[in-house]
Every structure is written in structure tokens, then in C-alpha cells.
């Protein structure tokens, strides 16, 4: 079975890869993923907001009482300055690159244009094979229009593409009002890949303490359908390669994703739940299924059920909604 796939210009042995997550927290974990058959490594996101906040909080923690007291100039030791900032991420990236033979895709979540560019440059210099821009943004500002959100994102992509030579993917959220249109604009901007979709961490409410608490739930296969639909809609209509992330738990999920048009399949929750070996198991089961069903290659299957090629394209569009409702019986 020819499982190879081409994603962001990289030829990968097969399409199932670990997604951006804390899976890649140290070199041991990375090695285990590679041993389990990961065709590439996607690094966790470098969050500008977090870097900035930590920078500020460490700087504040270190400096706030400086020079305030006769008996103590400072209350904490001075660290080696070079240790602060995004350096630890870059260092991890460098080491991962040295440890594994597969490509390494870095991920970046910026907030300000300056930092997008600076970090993108640093990431490329640290040896990343490609860069995933994680457009993680809750559009809570009532003064900012949808158009302006899109414009800002396009601008970031344009600038990043200008400063780095490695392939650049954009990880999208499902909350763009005209996703197909927006995807085409990104495509025109020269983006090398689209990753759909980001899973937002949703805050929860603690009814006892009356506090908003962060919650982190692993995905399940029910999240797949939204993604399948948009893969199918975009497949064949953009030059950029397509990756799916969120809701891939079984080999069937993976098969569907490829049929809908995915060049790459990112999985996180399944690996977190079952360990790195899950990755190889998914690949083997997918290969087996394809074999049983007479497929020769991933390429052959890719996009077969996209909007352009599937027997009933309307099912991906509005009709779907109506039919499901009509078929529902209490």
C-alpha cells in the first residue's frame, strides 16, 4: 500500500501525524512518537501572549522590589538573562530537529505583527521544516468587524511569507463567516497549507464558587463531522494542502478525512488517551482497510468524497441540515 502523502511540499510516509500539543514536551516523548511511526513532528504552539506574559511576570517578579530596601537590593537571584524569552521554545525545536530524522513543523500563535515576524524568523533559523500559524483568536471585540479580522490575518500571512522561505500553513477556526472565500484569499496570498480546525479551550462555570474556570476536554469523533464538511468544500478549490485536526480517533475517521480531501491528518486526543503507539495502530488499520477495499494509494482516495467529486454534493451544503431535521423522530 502506498501511504505516502505530500503536505506543505514535504513528502511524508503516511498522512497520520501528531498535532500541535503538549505531546512534544521533551525529547523522550519526541523519540517515542518517531518510533511509533510519526511521519513528522508538529511542535506545540509558541504563544506570543504567554511568552509576553511570562516575560512580564518574571521581570516583574524579579524587579518589583529592586532598590526598595536598605538591607536588600533584590529578593531573587538574577538569572542568566539569555534564559528568558522564547529561547526555551527555540532550544527545544533545535534539539527535536537533531533528535529525529522526520520533518519538524513548528507552530506559532502571535498577537502583534512584530512578534509574528520576529518569532517566524527565529523558528526558521532554529531549523523548522515548516511553520504552522495558529490563528487563535476569540473575536470578542464588538468594535472589530469580521472583515477586519480577516484582513489582519491576511496581512500577517503576507508578512510571514515574505520573511521565511519554509512552507507556511495556517490553522483556522471555524468561525469565519465565509470560510470558503477567506480560504481562497489565503490561498492567493501563497499560503502552503490550511489546517482545519483549531479547537478552542472553552471556559466552564463553577456553580459552587461562582467562578469561570478553564476546562480542557479531549476531542471525540463527534467533532469530526464539521471538519469533514469543510475539507470537502475546500478540497480541490485551493492550491494549499489541507490538514485536518480535531476528532480523528479511529482508522475510519482517518479514511473519511482523506476521502474528504485531507493531505494530512493530525491527531492529539487519541494519542494522549492511548499513547504514541496509537499512531502506528491507526496507520496500520487504515492501510488494512484500504487494502480490503481495493485502494492502492492514499493519493487515489484523497478527495474522492469532496464537494467537487462526491455523488451528492448538496449533502455538504444546506440540504444536509434540512434532511437531518426531517428524519429526526422523538
Amino acid at each position, binding site marked *: 500500500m502506498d501511504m505516502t502523502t505530500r503536505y506543505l511540499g514535504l513528502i511524508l510516509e503516511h498522512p497520520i501525524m501528531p498535532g500541535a500539543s503538549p505531546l512534544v514536551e*521533551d525529547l523522550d516523548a519526541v523519540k517515542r512518537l518517531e518510533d511509533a511511526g510519526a511521519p513528522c513532528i508538529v511542535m506545540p504552539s509558541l504563544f506570543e501572549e504567554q*511568552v*509576553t506574559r*511570562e*516575560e*512580564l*511576570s*518574571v*521581570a*516583574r*517578579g*524579579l*524587579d*518589583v*522590589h*529592586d*532598590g*526598595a*530596601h*536598605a*538591607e*536588600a*537590593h*533584590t*529578593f*531573587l*537571584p*538574577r*538569572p*542568566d*538573562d*539569555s*534564559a*528568558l*524569552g522564547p529561547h*526555551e521554545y527555540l532550544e*527545544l525545536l533545535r534539539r527535536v530537529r537533531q533528535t529525529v530524522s522526520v520533518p519538524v513543523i513548528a507552530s506559532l500563535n502571535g498577537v502583534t505583527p*512584530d*512578534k509574528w515576524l*520576529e518569532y517566524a524568523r527565529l523558528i526558521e533559523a532554529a531549523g523548522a521544516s515548516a511553520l504552522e500559524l495558529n490563528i487563535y483568536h476569540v473575536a470578542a471585540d464588538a468594535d472589530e468587524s469580521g472583515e477586519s479580522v480577516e484582513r489582519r490575518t491576511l496581512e500577517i500571512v503576507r508578512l510571514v511569507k515574505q520573511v521565511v522561505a519554509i512552507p507556511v500553513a495556517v490553522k483556522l477556526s471555524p468561525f469565519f463567516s465565509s470560510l470558503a472565500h477567506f480560504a481562497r484569499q489565503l490561498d492567493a496570498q501563497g499560503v502552503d497549507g490550511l489546517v482545519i480546525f483549531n479547537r478552542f479551550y472553552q471556559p466552564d462555570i463553577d456553580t459552587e464558587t*461562582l*467562578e469561570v474556570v478553564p476546562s480542557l476536554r479531549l476531542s471525540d469523533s463527534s467533532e469530526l463531522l464539521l471538519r469533514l464538511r469543510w475539507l470537502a468544500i475546500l478540497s480541490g478549490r485551493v492550491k494549499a494542502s489541507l490538514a485536518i485536526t480535531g476528532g480523528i480517533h479511529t482508522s475510519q475517521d482517518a479514511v473519511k478525512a482523506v476521502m474528504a480531501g485531507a493531505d494530512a491528518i493530525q491527531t492529539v486526543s487519541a494519542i494522549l488517551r492511548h499513547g504514541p503507539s496509537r499512531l502506528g495502530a491507526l496507520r496500520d488499520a487504515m492501510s488494512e482497510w484500504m487494502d480490503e477495499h481495493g485502494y492502492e494509494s492514499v493519493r487515489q482516495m484523497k478527495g474522492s468524497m469532496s464537494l467537487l467529486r462526491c455523488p451528492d454534493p448538496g449533502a455538504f451544503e444546506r440540504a444536509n441540515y434540512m434532511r437531518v431535521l426531517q428524519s429526526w423522530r422523538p
Partner: protein
Amino acid sequence: MSARKMVTVDGNEAAASVAHRLSEVIAIYPITPSSTMGELADEWSAHARTNIWGSVPQVTEMQSEGGAAGAVHGALQAGAMATTFTASQGLLLMIPNMYKIAGELTAFCMHVSARALATHALSIFGDHSDVMACRQTGFAMLASGSVQEAHDLACIAHAATLRARVPFMHFFDGFRTSHEVAKMEQLTDDDLRFMIDDSLVAAHRRRGLTPDHPVLRGTAQNPDVFFQAREACNRFYLACPDIVAETMERFATLTGRRYGLFDYVGHPEAERVIVMMGSGAETAHETIEYLAQREEKVGLLKVRLFRPFSIEAFVAALPSTVTSIAVMDRTKEPGGVGEPLYLDVVAALQESGRNMRVLGGRYGLGSKEFTPAMVKAALDELRAGQPRRHFTVGILDDVTHTSLPIESGFDIESDDVVRAIFFGLGSDGTVSANKNSIKIIGEGTDRWVQGYFVYDSRKSGSVTVSHLRFGPRPIRSEYLIGKASFIACHQSIFLDRFDVLEHAAQGAVFLLNAPGTPEEVWDRLPVEIQEQIILKGIRFHTIDASRVAAETGMGGRINSIMQTGFFAISGVLPRQEAIDRIKSAIRKTYEKKGDEIVQRNFAAVDLTLEHLREVPVPGRVTATRRLPPPVPAGAPVFLQRVTSMMLAGKGDLLPVSAFPVDGSWPLGTTKWEKRAIALQIPAWDDVLCIQCNKCAMVCPHAAIRAKTYPAAGLENAPAGFKSCDYKGHEFPGQKYTIQVAPEDCTGCGLCVMVCPAKDRSNPKHKAIDMQTMAPLRAAEVANYAFFLDLPEPDRTAVKLDVKGSQFLEPLFEYSGACAGCGETPYIKLLTQLYGDRALIANATGCSSIYGGNLPTTPYTTNRDGRGPAWSNSLFEDNAEFGLGFRLAIDTHVAHARGLVSTLASSLGAGLAAALLDAEQQDEIGIGAQRERVELLRRKLSGIESSEARRLEQVADYLVKKSIWIVGGDGWAYDIGFGGLDHVLALGPDVNILVLDTEVYSNTGGQQSKATPMGAAAKFAVAGRSLAKKDLGLWAMTYGNAYVARVAFGAKDAQTVKAFAEAQSYPGPSLIIAYSPCIAHGYDLAYGAEQQKLAVESGHWPLFRFDPRRAAAGDTPLVLDSPPPRADLARYMRNETRFLMVERQDPARFKRLLESARQSAANRYGVYEQLARLVAQTDPSKAGVSKNEVAGKPLQER
């Protein structure tokens, strides 16, 4: 040879820079003002900086200075090049080893930032009483007077000791030199190699102990030989001065800076000469030059090498024309003929056959100012008809009349020196910014610079005054600025507290941070300030720095903004050049910390220039408001007369007669100092409140209080006074109020964070919210005054739980502790529960500083005049000190009981028996015994006998006293551990409260054995790799001690219970109290949350170990917290001390985190096992049977 650099550093860094490069082993212990030397050495070694032989010096923090001296002694004996840094009491602890090191003729140089010794009071400041206490040890003593000298003479001392084999103490004045930032030429490694003779280093190594060529050193000698052998070292001491002189000459050929054993300055035919050493000699140098230029025949002899004292060199340096000498000593030897330097000079003159008038003068004790006018006063005294043979200068001694009159207005400073004074808050970054300005000018231009910083002793709302000089030649003015050409006031609240323009020169520039238009700013100034602006022709500028800071995301740090203002209008540099230099300095400082911080600072600089305004000064005073008095009119006379002067910054003017002769001071003085430092204060919602009193419990400053009182008390209440029905059953029908002390609150927000009562439809609102103080202040001041006057609840009716404890009056209030301090809530609780009968022995540290540092102190009395009797002995002896209290009280009790028995027939058998058998376990028992003692006194007054008179003296001891031994982890885990161990083992009835901040807090965050694994601290920059010492487990092994580990923010009820059990336990009790601290690096408003996490993650398991339970056949150990259930990482990542370890080395952090998790789980496992053990119920072992043990007076056993 590489070129030397000009650098701006302080004296500590100047000395440490040499010492680190010339040492292989450095053993230290933190003590102000020398701590920085050790910290720098550690930091340099942590960053792999090498010594001149290419190896990285090993820096080891010991458990005490005694330990550091021992380690250094050992290292020297084993042939290493070693050094140490210390001061004051620390130096005293080194003395035994110093005798040994000298007696063994060891090449060694230590560096001392000379500091006052604690006598009638502790002083962290500079004088020579510590070094003078070592002059008999056999150490050579070399004195530096400036930052450059601290660098140069450090090198000379290290070089000379190798040849002389006499060990050296190189010293310089604490603070005035150790903390002064100045420009100096830094010696290169090649310079040091030039000065250090490698063959002598080799000789030192060869003398080291080694089994390959063994010798035995440290014999015990008998009367037949000891004396002769002791005299065998003489020739080394005789040779030493010449060696030093030759080393100085070699140094002069290298650098051009020439030093002598004694350096003479002044008129070549001087008649009157001052002899002195240290920084004061610099001021004298400047003054003598000024006077000599005016044809005054005066001179100065600076003493460099004080030991061995070379009479020959001394006499040679003295011009033959001299007829009178004033010898100035910066120490006091009460009862002596004179101070040490004076005695040496007298003896030297006598031995050399020169006869002249010699006066001895004391100056500068505890960093007292020493100015040119004082130098002149000493010189003037030399030609007085009837001079004071022994005088003081710099104070007014109106009791024994030793002090010299000072000529006011004697000012010798040249106008080409820019002199600037900055008033700032400790928290606003003023000092950091000024150090930065000094660097910018000192290292970027050819000007000479000097910065000296004056701090008050409070840890919250502390005021800093920076004195900066910039001039065309080296600056010798080692005193505060008298006339400033630039004055900046970084906080407008200071205008009501100090006369900030007192030292403004004619035509000075004044910069004030204040909101509003220039006209509004002018209108808000008090009369005194307006007057001076007009009279002195001051150019007045204003900037709303807080607004600029807010707009540029700088938070409360207005330092860059005010610094920009200084550069823009002071004229110290051309404006654009100054701005460019600030920006490049900002980039250099913050680049590595992150671009965001750089950008924010840049924006602040730009916006400052836009917002800076000159205030048009009208021709006349328009204000009607005058500076308010420092303490209100109703304050006691002593406060009005003495404390108020200190508060106004005029303590220097107080005469000797103003002071208690023995260091005893009145209690309850913080209440008269209304600092009003909070921007926001808590506001109470009486409807929402559930009356839990948790807000009062956590308040570090006793600035939010709870009270129940009869409804009738509300008569005459101010209009806005809030009150509601009390919900508890113990005081039916009473009213209840939570009241904030608006001017004493520090605005830390802890009370709001712990308040559990949320508005259900708007949970943002709680029963306590923080609100802006300004509009609330006046009304709340009136409310608080009314609240304090309401009757206190009946102590005998209050339930002893969290809520009840907060109805008891705190006898520790409004201390200067940090906002959000995690220690003070425990001390406050102690005073609420037992303050009216407590004696407190307090180890030196934060708690002794906020507990006893003048001008005002927080321990106070109740309406009966009773309150905690508090004292601080030393850092290292606190357990023993407290034991002494116990022994004394026991003696008094035994004496009183004996007399009651003797007088029983006269007193009435009933009363005598009741007095002797009184149950005093609770407030009811204590109250009843107090009444009996009153009755006893009445009866005694009618009995004519010497026994009756003696019983009157000790009758109060029949009421049980509560002994508390309080200190931090530095004391309990490290320096005082031996004493703590011994006291626990002795079994006396004392209560020991360890305020565990897990780090040396007062001296600036050095690691202690309480520092947890994974935390960064000084001397553990990469994160401590060992687990925290388990003091609780250790104490439990004795079996006779009550032990509790508490965290008030995690489980306040357990804390209160532990205090009550500790007090009732008739033997030693140890409470280990988790205390959040600014050295942990987070906003202490979250202190209670962090305590919860500390407990839940297993970092700080709670328990109580009560031997009484064992005696009753039960398990003595009770665990009060469940097994770890929260992730330790969550706790650790909230604090910079841990986070910076992760940021520096994530892999190491991960390893440490894993070990810490394991260690927490193991520790809990051990406790669980112990908690299952029913102890051996042998009371003689458990030491708990009430009649047999500990609590009983020792002499009864």
C-alpha cells in the same frame, strides 16, 4: 595587557570583584551590609566566571558566620586561596577562627563592610565598632575610604598577605562605601596577575595539609612552651608594614594610584592635623584641601594600615610642624580611656618622643552624617583654649556635653558639580532608575559620578531618598547633599510629609510627579513649598507620571518616566544626547528580558517628553494649607517631642537627652503615624457579609477589624458608620461591624481575596471590595476612630475559633511589613490570643525589623495598659534568649508562690489556696486570677512585713505568662538551630513560632535549609536541588514537644487550634507557619490562594503533634490535610522563584518538579504512617504528664 575599563559600581562590588578573581573557595553567610559581596560572588561563579588561575571559585553559603569562618579556615589549612565577606555581629562570630587563622600565620584576606554592633539597639548602618572588636586577633587591618580604594586596597591586601603570611581584614564603611555607587577604574585580570606572586601562591599551597607530606597543626600546649611559641610569630608582624608599603608601591607603578601606610594631605607646614580612617577621611580630605588653599595650616593623616600599627611610618608621615592632633574614631568604647585609634596615636607619639596636644573624637556612629562642617569643628577645637580632650561631633550631647558646636552654612562644594536629590517610594523604581542614570553618565561620559541612597526601614510604602552627584573630578563628598541643583519628588504625597525643598539651592530645578494641569498642581502645594519655590527662584516642572505609566503599560513603575524628566530638564547632559542614552540603556537592560518590556519603556520615554510641563510660578504664595504635623496633637508627649522629629526626617537634630538611656521604648507608636499609603482600601457591604471575620484574620496590618458591641454603643455614631445585627449566639442582641483603618491599610487586597460572600446576581461584588481611597478617606477615618472607641467584646465570652479570635483586640498593629506579608497575621493572632500576658523573644530578621525598627513600632497595649513585652537579642541565640525569659519567670513565680504560702495566714487561707491552685487555662481562669491578684495587693498593703513588700514586687507573676520565641526560617533552620534543638530538649514551657518564608527574607532572599526543592534563591540560582529540611519531623522525634505545621490561608481554623494547643501544652511547642513573602515573586494578594495550593499539592502538609494524646493512649500525630491532590506544578508555576528555574532550564525544572512531587508524596506517606502509630504511653518519656514535666519551674525538679 588589556585596557582597564571605567565602571560605575558600589563598594561591595568593587571589593568582591577583586576577591572573586583571587579566590578558589568562598564561604559566606548573608548579613547587611556585606550580603551583596557574597551574592555577586555566587552569581559570577554561577555564570562560570573564573579567577585569575582559570578556575571557577566555589561559593558556599553556610549556616552562620561562625560556620563560614570555620569553612574558610579549613579551606586555608588545606591549601586553597579562600575569602569571606561579613560585617557586624557576623564578624564577631568569626573571631574565634580569626585567632586561629592568624596564629597559624595563614595567608588570607577577608572583606568587611564595617557596621555598628547591636548594643542599646540594632543598627544596620556603618561604623567601626565591629572591626575594632577584632584588632586583637592578629589580623592585619587595612581601611578603604572610597569605592576605588575598596577595589585597589582589596588587591593590595590579597597580594600582601601572601608575602606577609599575616592574614588581612580589608574593611570599608558599611553603606557609605559599600552601597555608594561611584565611577572607578577596574583592575584587569592581568593587573591582578601582576600583583599576585605565583611563587607565594605555591608556597601557600605547600603549607596546606596533605597526607602526602603530613604535618600536625593545632596542638594543645602546656605552660612550659605556649608563651614562647606564641612569640614566635613576632618577626612576621614586624615585617608586615614594609611588605604592605612595598606592595603599595608596586601597585602605584601599575596604576599610578599611590597609597601609603599613612597618607598625609594638607598644608606642608600644618599645625593642626586630623587622624582618621574610612570614608570620613575622604570628607576630611576635601575639607582640608579647601582650608589649606585658604592658607589654613591644617592637615589630615589617613590611616590605611591600622594593624600592624607602624609607629615609624606614622611619625614619618606627620609633618614636623604639627602641634595638635584630633584623632577621630568611628566607634565607642564606653569606660575606656579613649577609643582605639586615639590610644594608638597617643602611644605612638609617646614612644617616638613627640609631644603635642591630642584630642580624641567620636563621629559617625551608625552612619551618622560626617560633613565638612564637622571636620572644621574638630580642627577648630584643636586651637580652643580649653579643648574637650574627648569630644563627639555630629550630634548634640546636652547631657555630658561632649559635642562640638557646628558652624551652620559651612559649604565647600563646588558649583560645577551637579547635585540632585530624588524622593521616591521603594516600589516605584526610583533607586533603580537613578543607578541607571549614574551608569549612563559615568560610563558614557568623562564625568565623575556618585550615588548614595537613603532608605527608611519600612517594607511597605518605604521612602527612598537618592543623592546623586555628577562632577568634572573625582568626588570625595562622602555625605548627603546639602544644597541640590535638582530635586525630584516622585510621589506628591511626600509634600505633606517632608520638606522636600529644604535642600534646594538657589535657582534649583524641581520636578514633581502629580496629576492635573500646571495650575492645579501649583494650587495643591502647601504654603511651605510654595514659599521656597518663590524665595529660591526655583524652576518648577511637573509630569503626570502615573498617567504616562498607565498609558504605556508600565504599571506602577514610573522610574523610566521620572528618569527621562530628570535628563530632559536638569541640564546634566544635552537633552537629545541624554534621551538617546536612556534609550540605549533601556535596550541594554531589558533586551534579554523581552522586547515587550523594551517597547513599553521606549513609549514611556517618548510620552514623558510630551507631557512634561513647566509650572508658571506666581509672585506670591497662594496656598492656605500648611504641612500637617507628623503626629496628631493628641499623641503622647514623647511622640510629639521625639518621634515626630524622626518622622519628619529631622531625627538628626534630636539631642542626647531626648533618648531613653537603655534602649527601652514605649509601645503602641505606629498608631500615631498615619501613612495613608493605599491607593485602594476595602469597603464593607454589611448586607452581604456573613460575619466570618476571615478578612480580619488575614490582614497583615490589623487594618481591617471586626467587633460586636451593644446596640447602645451606636449612639453618636458618624453618619456613614455601618453596622448590622450580630448573627452569632454568644452575643445575642449585639451589633456587628467590619471596619477598615483607611490610613493604616496598605491596599494589599488579601481581605478581598479571602472574602467568601459573593453577590449571587453579580459575583464580581463581594462583602468586601477594593475601592479608591481618596473619596472614602475622611469618612472612614471618622468611622475608624468611632469603632476603636466602641467597647471591646468580653474576652471570657469569646469562642476560641477563627471568628472569635478576631473579636480579640490585636496588640500588634500597622507594622511596616510588606503589603500582603505572610508572617504578620500569625504574630497578630498571637497578640490577640495571648498578647496581654506575653513575653516575646524575637530573632533578628524581618520580624524584628517590622517589630522593633524606629521611628514607630507596632506592638501595643490594651486599655488596661497590658501588652506584649518584646525584645530582640541576636539572630543566632533567640531560642536561648526566650528560654532565659522562661527561667526568670519561673523564678519569679516560685518566689511569689513561696511568699503566698508564707503569708497564707495573714492573707487568709482561702485566698492563698485560690491563688496557688488557680486554673489558668483560659480567659476565664486568667481573668479570675487577675482579680485575685488585685485582692492580694489590697491585702498586702495592710500587712507590715518584708515578705509582703517582696510579694508586691512579684505578685503579677501569679498570673500565668506566655513565653513566645519568634523568628524566621533563617534562624530556626540554620543559625539558631543548635539553640532551638537544645531548648526543645530541655522541655521548658515555651511557644516557638517559626515564620517560614523558606528563604532569608530580610537580607534579600538567600536560600536557607527551608528553601524548597526547585526554588531559585540566592546561592541557589539554578533552583535548589535538595528537599526542604523537615523541621516538624525532627521536632517530633523528641516526643516531648508539641509540634504543628500551619498555613492560615489554607486552613485558618487549624491555625487557631494549633496556637491554642501550643499555649496550653505544658512543655515546648513549635509552630511552623507557612509565610508567603515578596521573595517568592508573585502578587501577595494571592497569598491565601497559594497557601491552599501549597497544602493541596503536598508542599505544605498540615498537622498537629500533641504528646498529650500519646499520654491518653491515642496517636499524637493528627494530619490536618488530605494526601496531595493538586499538581505541585500548579503551585510552583505561580511563583517567580520556581518559574525562573523553568525559564532558565526547563529540563532541570522538570527533574526537580518530579523529585519534589515524589518527595511530597513520600513525606505525606511517612506522616500517614506516624499518624497510625499509637505512641508508647510512658509519660516519663513523653514528658507530658502535667505534674511531672516541662511546664513546672525547672528548679522544682
